[in-house]
Protein backbone atom coordinates (compact mmCIF):
# COMPACT_ATOMS: atom_id res chain seq x y z
CA UNK A 1 0.00 0.00 0.00
CA UNK A 2 1.15 3.48 -0.77
CA UNK A 3 -0.07 6.74 0.70
CA UNK A 4 0.45 10.23 -0.62
CA UNK A 5 1.99 13.18 1.19
CA UNK A 6 -0.40 15.81 2.49
CA UNK A 7 1.49 18.94 1.59
CA UNK A 8 4.27 19.82 -0.84
CA UNK A 9 6.21 23.04 -1.40
CA UNK A 10 6.96 23.73 -5.07
CA UNK A 11 9.52 26.43 -5.87
CA UNK A 12 10.22 27.20 -9.52
CA UNK A 13 10.65 30.53 -11.31
CA UNK A 14 8.77 29.18 -14.33
CA UNK A 15 5.07 29.73 -13.65
CA UNK A 16 3.89 27.18 -16.20
CA UNK A 17 6.07 24.44 -14.79
CA UNK A 18 5.09 25.36 -11.25
CA UNK A 19 1.41 25.03 -12.14
CA UNK A 20 1.96 21.82 -14.10
CA UNK A 21 3.78 20.17 -11.20
CA UNK A 22 1.05 21.36 -8.86
CA UNK A 23 -1.66 19.92 -11.12
CA UNK A 24 0.16 16.58 -11.36
CA UNK A 25 0.53 16.40 -7.59
CA UNK A 26 -3.12 17.37 -7.12
CA UNK A 27 -4.11 14.54 -9.44
CA UNK A 28 -1.90 12.20 -7.45
CA UNK A 29 -3.75 13.20 -4.29
CA UNK A 30 -1.57 15.82 -2.63
CA UNK A 31 -4.09 18.04 -0.87
CA UNK A 32 -2.00 21.10 -0.14
CA UNK A 33 0.45 22.55 -2.60
CA UNK A 34 2.39 25.67 -1.65
CA UNK A 35 3.73 27.46 -4.72
CA UNK A 36 6.55 30.02 -4.81
CA UNK A 37 8.79 31.52 -7.48
CA UNK A 38 11.62 32.73 -5.27
CA UNK A 39 13.15 32.65 -1.80
CA UNK A 40 11.29 35.85 -1.00
CA UNK A 41 7.94 34.24 -1.85
CA UNK A 42 8.84 31.17 0.23
CA UNK A 43 9.62 33.45 3.17
CA UNK A 44 6.31 35.26 2.65
CA UNK A 45 4.47 31.95 2.82
CA UNK A 46 6.14 31.31 6.18
CA UNK A 47 4.55 28.46 8.13
CA UNK A 48 2.73 27.06 5.10
CA UNK A 49 6.09 26.47 3.46
CA UNK A 50 7.86 25.27 6.59
CA UNK A 51 5.16 22.73 7.45
CA UNK A 52 5.23 21.04 4.05
CA UNK A 53 6.36 17.43 4.02
CA UNK A 54 8.33 17.73 0.80
CA UNK A 55 10.00 20.63 -0.99
CA UNK A 56 10.53 20.37 -4.75
CA UNK A 57 13.00 23.12 -5.58
CA UNK A 58 14.27 24.30 -8.93
CA UNK A 59 18.02 24.83 -8.60
CA UNK A 60 18.16 27.90 -10.84
CA UNK A 61 15.60 30.51 -9.83
CA UNK A 62 16.67 33.16 -12.35
CA UNK A 63 19.66 35.39 -12.99
CA UNK A 64 21.06 37.13 -9.91
CA UNK A 65 18.38 35.57 -7.73
CA UNK A 66 18.85 33.34 -4.68
CA UNK A 67 19.03 29.73 -5.88
CA UNK A 68 17.13 26.65 -4.81
CA UNK A 69 20.13 25.86 -2.59
CA UNK A 70 19.54 29.16 -0.75
CA UNK A 71 15.88 28.19 -0.34
CA UNK A 72 16.88 24.79 1.07
CA UNK A 73 19.27 26.44 3.55
CA UNK A 74 16.55 28.85 4.67
CA UNK A 75 14.09 25.99 5.09
CA UNK A 76 16.53 23.89 7.14
CA UNK A 77 17.59 26.90 9.22
CA UNK A 78 13.94 27.55 10.06
CA UNK A 79 13.07 24.06 11.16
CA UNK A 80 11.79 22.50 7.94
CA UNK A 81 11.71 18.76 8.64
CA UNK A 82 10.53 17.39 5.29
CA UNK A 83 12.41 15.92 2.38
CA UNK A 84 14.04 18.16 -0.22
CA UNK A 85 14.25 17.35 -3.91
CA UNK A 86 16.11 19.56 -6.37
CA UNK A 87 14.74 19.62 -9.90
CA UNK A 88 17.25 20.81 -12.49
CA UNK A 89 17.84 20.90 -16.21
CA UNK A 90 21.51 21.75 -15.80
CA UNK A 91 24.57 19.50 -15.94
CA UNK A 92 26.19 18.16 -12.79
CA UNK A 93 29.13 20.55 -13.24
CA UNK A 94 26.93 23.65 -13.05
CA UNK A 95 28.09 25.45 -9.89
CA UNK A 96 24.50 25.71 -8.63
CA UNK A 97 23.97 21.96 -9.13
CA UNK A 98 27.29 21.24 -7.39
CA UNK A 99 26.09 23.38 -4.47
CA UNK A 100 22.77 21.51 -4.45
CA UNK A 101 24.56 18.16 -4.41
CA UNK A 102 26.42 19.26 -1.29
CA UNK A 103 23.22 19.96 0.67
CA UNK A 104 22.77 17.03 3.08
CA UNK A 105 19.67 14.78 2.92
CA UNK A 106 18.52 15.93 -0.50
CA UNK A 107 18.00 14.36 -3.91
CA UNK A 108 18.63 15.80 -7.36
CA UNK A 109 16.17 14.89 -10.12
CA UNK A 110 17.05 15.91 -13.68
CA UNK A 111 14.48 17.59 -15.93
CA UNK A 112 12.50 16.44 -17.76
CA UNK A 113 11.22 13.81 -15.40
CA UNK A 114 8.17 11.70 -16.14
CA UNK A 115 4.77 12.07 -14.53
CA UNK A 116 5.28 8.73 -12.79
CA UNK A 117 8.67 9.86 -11.53
CA UNK A 118 7.13 12.99 -10.07
CA UNK A 119 4.25 11.08 -8.48
CA UNK A 120 6.73 8.62 -6.95
CA UNK A 121 8.27 11.53 -5.05
CA UNK A 122 5.05 12.13 -3.10
CA UNK A 123 4.20 8.50 -2.51
CA UNK A 124 5.15 6.96 0.82
CA UNK A 125 4.87 3.36 1.94
CA UNK A 126 2.20 2.88 4.54
Amino acid sequence: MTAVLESVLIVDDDEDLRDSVSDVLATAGVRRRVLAASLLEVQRQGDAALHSQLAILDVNLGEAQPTGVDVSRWLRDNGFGGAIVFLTGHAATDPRVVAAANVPNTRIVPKPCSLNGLVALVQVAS
Partner: protein
Amino acid sequence: VRSEEQRLDDQELTTGRRQTITAAAVAAFGNLLGAFLTTLFYGGGFGNSLRYAHATLSALVMVLALVLPPTRRLIISLWAIETAPLLPLLVVWTLAVPEAKMSESFIAFKMVLMGVALLTPLSLWLGLLLLAGLSILTVALWAMHLAGNLPGEPWVTLFYAVFAVALLVQRDSERRLTRRLVQANAEASALERIARSSLAVRDRMNTPLQTLALSLELLDGRVSDAETRELVSRMRRAVVKLTELSTRLAEDDPHKLEP
Protein backbone atom coordinates in the same frame (compact mmCIF):
# COMPACT_ATOMS: atom_id res chain seq x y z
CA VAL B 1 40.28 30.60 -35.52
CA ARG B 2 40.69 33.38 -38.07
CA SER B 3 41.23 36.03 -35.41
CA GLU B 4 43.91 33.88 -33.77
CA GLU B 5 45.64 33.44 -37.13
CA GLN B 6 45.41 37.19 -37.70
CA ARG B 7 46.98 37.79 -34.28
CA LEU B 8 49.78 35.36 -35.15
CA ASP B 9 50.31 37.05 -38.54
CA ASP B 10 50.58 40.43 -36.80
CA GLN B 11 53.03 38.97 -34.29
CA GLU B 12 55.18 37.49 -37.08
CA LEU B 13 55.17 40.78 -38.96
CA THR B 14 56.20 42.67 -35.83
CA THR B 15 59.05 40.20 -35.23
CA GLY B 16 60.01 40.33 -38.94
CA ARG B 17 60.11 44.12 -38.84
CA ARG B 18 62.25 44.06 -35.70
CA GLN B 19 64.65 41.57 -37.33
CA THR B 20 64.93 43.71 -40.47
CA ILE B 21 65.56 46.85 -38.46
CA THR B 22 68.15 45.05 -36.31
CA ALA B 23 69.92 43.65 -39.38
CA ALA B 24 69.91 47.07 -41.06
CA ALA B 25 71.26 48.74 -37.92
CA VAL B 26 73.99 46.12 -37.51
CA ALA B 27 74.90 46.41 -41.20
CA ALA B 28 75.03 50.22 -41.10
CA PHE B 29 77.10 50.25 -37.93
CA GLY B 30 79.32 47.37 -39.15
CA ASN B 31 79.98 49.13 -42.44
CA LEU B 32 80.95 52.37 -40.72
CA LEU B 33 83.17 50.53 -38.24
CA GLY B 34 84.68 48.51 -41.08
CA ALA B 35 85.36 51.69 -43.03
CA PHE B 36 87.00 53.30 -39.99
CA LEU B 37 89.20 50.26 -39.27
CA THR B 38 90.15 49.83 -42.92
CA THR B 39 91.15 53.49 -43.12
CA LEU B 40 93.10 53.09 -39.89
CA PHE B 41 94.99 49.96 -40.87
CA TYR B 42 95.02 49.88 -44.68
CA GLY B 43 94.41 53.49 -45.68
CA GLY B 44 90.85 53.15 -47.06
CA GLY B 45 90.19 52.58 -50.77
CA PHE B 46 87.37 51.50 -53.13
CA GLY B 47 86.09 49.02 -50.53
CA ASN B 48 85.22 51.87 -48.21
CA SER B 49 83.12 53.63 -50.85
CA LEU B 50 81.10 50.42 -51.11
CA ARG B 51 80.84 50.29 -47.31
CA TYR B 52 79.45 53.82 -47.18
CA ALA B 53 77.03 52.95 -50.00
CA HIS B 54 75.81 49.87 -48.15
CA ALA B 55 75.58 51.80 -44.85
CA THR B 56 73.37 54.34 -46.65
CA LEU B 57 71.25 51.55 -48.14
CA SER B 58 70.93 49.96 -44.68
CA ALA B 59 69.86 53.26 -43.15
CA LEU B 60 67.25 53.64 -45.90
CA VAL B 61 65.97 50.10 -45.24
CA MET B 62 65.79 50.89 -41.53
CA VAL B 63 63.76 54.06 -42.14
CA LEU B 64 61.39 52.28 -44.56
CA ALA B 65 60.88 49.42 -42.09
CA LEU B 66 60.10 51.93 -39.37
CA VAL B 67 57.79 54.14 -41.41
CA LEU B 68 55.84 51.81 -43.72
CA PRO B 69 53.05 49.59 -42.40
CA PRO B 70 54.55 46.09 -42.17
CA THR B 71 53.42 43.51 -44.70
CA ARG B 72 54.93 40.14 -45.46
CA ARG B 73 56.00 41.27 -48.93
CA LEU B 74 57.53 44.54 -47.65
CA ILE B 75 59.60 42.86 -44.97
CA ILE B 76 60.89 40.12 -47.29
CA SER B 77 61.69 42.73 -49.96
CA LEU B 78 63.50 45.01 -47.50
CA TRP B 79 65.49 42.05 -46.21
CA ALA B 80 66.43 41.03 -49.77
CA ILE B 81 67.42 44.63 -50.63
CA GLU B 82 69.48 44.78 -47.47
CA THR B 83 71.32 41.46 -47.82
CA ALA B 84 71.58 40.68 -51.54
CA PRO B 85 74.22 43.41 -52.20
CA LEU B 86 76.35 41.82 -49.50
CA LEU B 87 77.25 38.95 -51.85
CA PRO B 88 79.34 41.02 -54.32
CA LEU B 89 80.45 43.39 -51.56
CA LEU B 90 81.89 40.53 -49.51
CA VAL B 91 83.95 39.43 -52.53
CA VAL B 92 85.34 42.93 -52.98
CA TRP B 93 86.13 43.31 -49.28
CA THR B 94 87.70 39.86 -49.05
CA LEU B 95 89.92 40.50 -52.04
CA ALA B 96 90.85 43.96 -50.76
CA VAL B 97 92.60 42.67 -47.66
CA PRO B 98 95.59 40.40 -48.18
CA GLU B 99 95.18 37.14 -46.33
CA ALA B 100 98.70 37.35 -45.05
CA LYS B 101 97.51 40.14 -42.79
CA MET B 102 94.63 38.09 -41.39
CA SER B 103 94.44 35.34 -38.81
CA GLU B 104 91.36 33.73 -40.33
CA SER B 105 89.89 33.55 -43.83
CA PHE B 106 86.34 34.54 -44.75
CA ILE B 107 85.63 36.25 -41.39
CA ALA B 108 83.02 38.54 -42.94
CA PHE B 109 81.41 35.57 -44.75
CA LYS B 110 81.08 33.71 -41.47
CA MET B 111 79.54 36.69 -39.70
CA VAL B 112 77.03 37.21 -42.48
CA LEU B 113 76.20 33.48 -42.54
CA MET B 114 75.32 33.63 -38.84
CA GLY B 115 73.42 36.91 -39.27
CA VAL B 116 71.32 35.43 -42.06
CA ALA B 117 70.62 32.31 -39.99
CA LEU B 118 69.58 34.28 -36.93
CA LEU B 119 67.67 37.16 -38.45
CA THR B 120 66.13 36.22 -41.84
CA PRO B 121 62.43 36.99 -41.32
CA LEU B 122 59.40 35.07 -42.59
CA SER B 123 60.94 33.31 -45.61
CA LEU B 124 62.97 30.13 -45.29
CA TRP B 125 63.73 30.09 -49.00
CA LEU B 126 65.17 33.60 -49.03
CA GLY B 127 67.47 32.62 -46.17
CA LEU B 128 68.50 29.37 -47.85
CA LEU B 129 69.17 31.22 -51.11
CA LEU B 130 71.45 33.70 -49.35
CA LEU B 131 73.28 30.93 -47.50
CA ALA B 132 73.71 29.01 -50.76
CA GLY B 133 75.02 32.13 -52.47
CA LEU B 134 77.53 32.78 -49.68
CA SER B 135 78.70 29.14 -49.74
CA ILE B 136 79.14 29.14 -53.52
CA LEU B 137 81.16 32.37 -53.36
CA THR B 138 83.37 30.93 -50.62
CA VAL B 139 84.11 27.80 -52.61
CA ALA B 140 84.58 29.80 -55.82
CA LEU B 141 87.08 32.19 -54.18
CA TRP B 142 88.92 29.24 -52.67
CA ALA B 143 88.91 27.23 -55.92
CA MET B 144 90.26 30.20 -57.85
CA HIS B 145 92.95 30.64 -55.19
CA LEU B 146 91.75 34.18 -54.56
CA ALA B 147 91.03 33.65 -50.85
CA GLY B 148 90.73 30.93 -48.25
CA ASN B 149 94.33 29.89 -48.51
CA LEU B 150 94.73 29.53 -44.77
CA PRO B 151 94.53 25.97 -43.36
CA GLY B 152 91.10 24.43 -42.93
CA GLU B 153 89.35 26.50 -45.59
CA PRO B 154 86.87 26.35 -47.23
CA TRP B 155 85.67 23.59 -44.90
CA VAL B 156 85.51 25.75 -41.79
CA THR B 157 83.35 28.32 -43.57
CA LEU B 158 81.22 25.56 -45.08
CA PHE B 159 80.76 24.11 -41.61
CA TYR B 160 79.46 27.53 -40.56
CA ALA B 161 77.12 27.40 -43.56
CA VAL B 162 75.77 23.96 -42.59
CA PHE B 163 75.23 25.16 -39.04
CA ALA B 164 73.50 28.29 -40.38
CA VAL B 165 71.18 26.17 -42.57
CA ALA B 166 70.30 23.98 -39.59
CA LEU B 167 69.59 27.08 -37.49
CA LEU B 168 67.44 28.63 -40.21
CA VAL B 169 65.46 25.41 -40.76
CA GLN B 170 65.00 25.03 -37.01
CA ARG B 171 63.66 28.61 -36.73
CA ASP B 172 61.30 28.02 -39.62
CA SER B 173 59.95 24.73 -38.25
CA GLU B 174 59.47 26.38 -34.87
CA ARG B 175 57.49 29.14 -36.57
CA ARG B 176 55.34 26.55 -38.41
CA LEU B 177 54.85 24.53 -35.23
CA THR B 178 53.72 27.64 -33.35
CA ARG B 179 51.25 28.38 -36.14
CA ARG B 180 49.88 24.83 -36.03
CA LEU B 181 49.60 24.96 -32.24
CA VAL B 182 47.77 28.28 -32.35
CA GLN B 183 45.41 26.89 -35.01
CA ALA B 184 44.78 23.73 -32.99
CA ASN B 185 44.18 25.74 -29.81
CA ALA B 186 41.85 28.13 -31.59
CA GLU B 187 39.90 25.22 -33.12
CA ALA B 188 39.67 23.50 -29.74
CA SER B 189 38.40 26.72 -28.14
CA ALA B 190 35.83 27.19 -30.91
CA LEU B 191 34.60 23.59 -30.50
CA GLU B 192 34.43 24.07 -26.74
CA ARG B 193 32.33 27.21 -27.22
CA ILE B 194 29.97 25.32 -29.56
CA ALA B 195 29.70 22.45 -27.06
CA ARG B 196 28.97 24.90 -24.24
CA SER B 197 26.30 26.61 -26.35
CA SER B 198 24.59 23.33 -27.18
CA LEU B 199 24.63 22.32 -23.53
CA ALA B 200 23.22 25.71 -22.54
CA VAL B 201 20.44 25.25 -25.11
CA ARG B 202 19.73 21.80 -23.69
CA ASP B 203 19.67 23.12 -20.13
CA ARG B 204 17.27 25.91 -21.03
CA MET B 205 14.93 23.71 -23.10
CA ASN B 206 14.49 21.21 -20.28
CA THR B 207 12.11 23.41 -18.25
CA PRO B 208 9.59 24.07 -21.08
CA LEU B 209 9.98 20.42 -22.11
CA GLN B 210 9.12 19.36 -18.58
CA THR B 211 6.03 21.61 -18.62
CA LEU B 212 4.92 20.17 -21.97
CA ALA B 213 5.48 16.57 -20.86
CA LEU B 214 3.55 16.96 -17.60
CA SER B 215 0.75 18.99 -19.17
CA LEU B 216 0.27 16.42 -21.91
CA GLU B 217 0.16 13.59 -19.38
CA LEU B 218 -2.52 15.48 -17.48
CA LEU B 219 -4.45 16.29 -20.67
CA ASP B 220 -4.27 12.68 -21.74
CA GLY B 221 -6.08 11.63 -18.61
CA ARG B 222 -8.82 14.23 -19.07
CA VAL B 223 -9.90 13.79 -22.70
CA SER B 224 -12.17 11.04 -23.80
CA ASP B 225 -13.10 11.55 -27.44
CA ALA B 226 -10.95 9.69 -29.95
CA GLU B 227 -10.15 12.67 -32.12
CA THR B 228 -8.69 14.74 -29.24
CA ARG B 229 -6.85 11.72 -27.86
CA GLU B 230 -5.21 11.28 -31.28
CA LEU B 231 -4.13 14.97 -31.16
CA VAL B 232 -2.70 14.50 -27.67
CA SER B 233 -0.88 11.34 -28.77
CA ARG B 234 0.64 13.25 -31.65
CA MET B 235 1.86 15.96 -29.26
CA ARG B 236 3.25 13.34 -26.88
CA ARG B 237 5.23 11.78 -29.72
CA ALA B 238 6.63 15.22 -30.52
CA VAL B 239 7.60 15.71 -26.87
CA VAL B 240 9.29 12.29 -26.85
CA LYS B 241 11.32 13.33 -29.91
CA LEU B 242 12.29 16.59 -28.24
CA THR B 243 13.29 14.71 -25.10
CA GLU B 244 15.43 12.35 -27.20
CA LEU B 245 17.02 15.40 -28.81
CA SER B 246 17.77 16.84 -25.38
CA THR B 247 19.27 13.52 -24.31
CA ARG B 248 21.36 13.39 -27.47
CA LEU B 249 22.69 16.89 -26.78
CA ALA B 250 23.78 15.63 -23.38
CA GLU B 251 25.32 12.40 -24.72
CA ASP B 252 28.86 13.76 -24.86
CA ASP B 253 28.51 15.60 -21.57
CA PRO B 254 30.40 13.52 -19.02
CA HIS B 255 28.65 15.49 -16.27
CA LYS B 256 25.05 14.91 -17.30
CA LEU B 257 22.65 13.93 -14.54
CA GLU B 258 21.16 10.49 -14.96
CA PRO B 259 17.42 10.20 -14.26
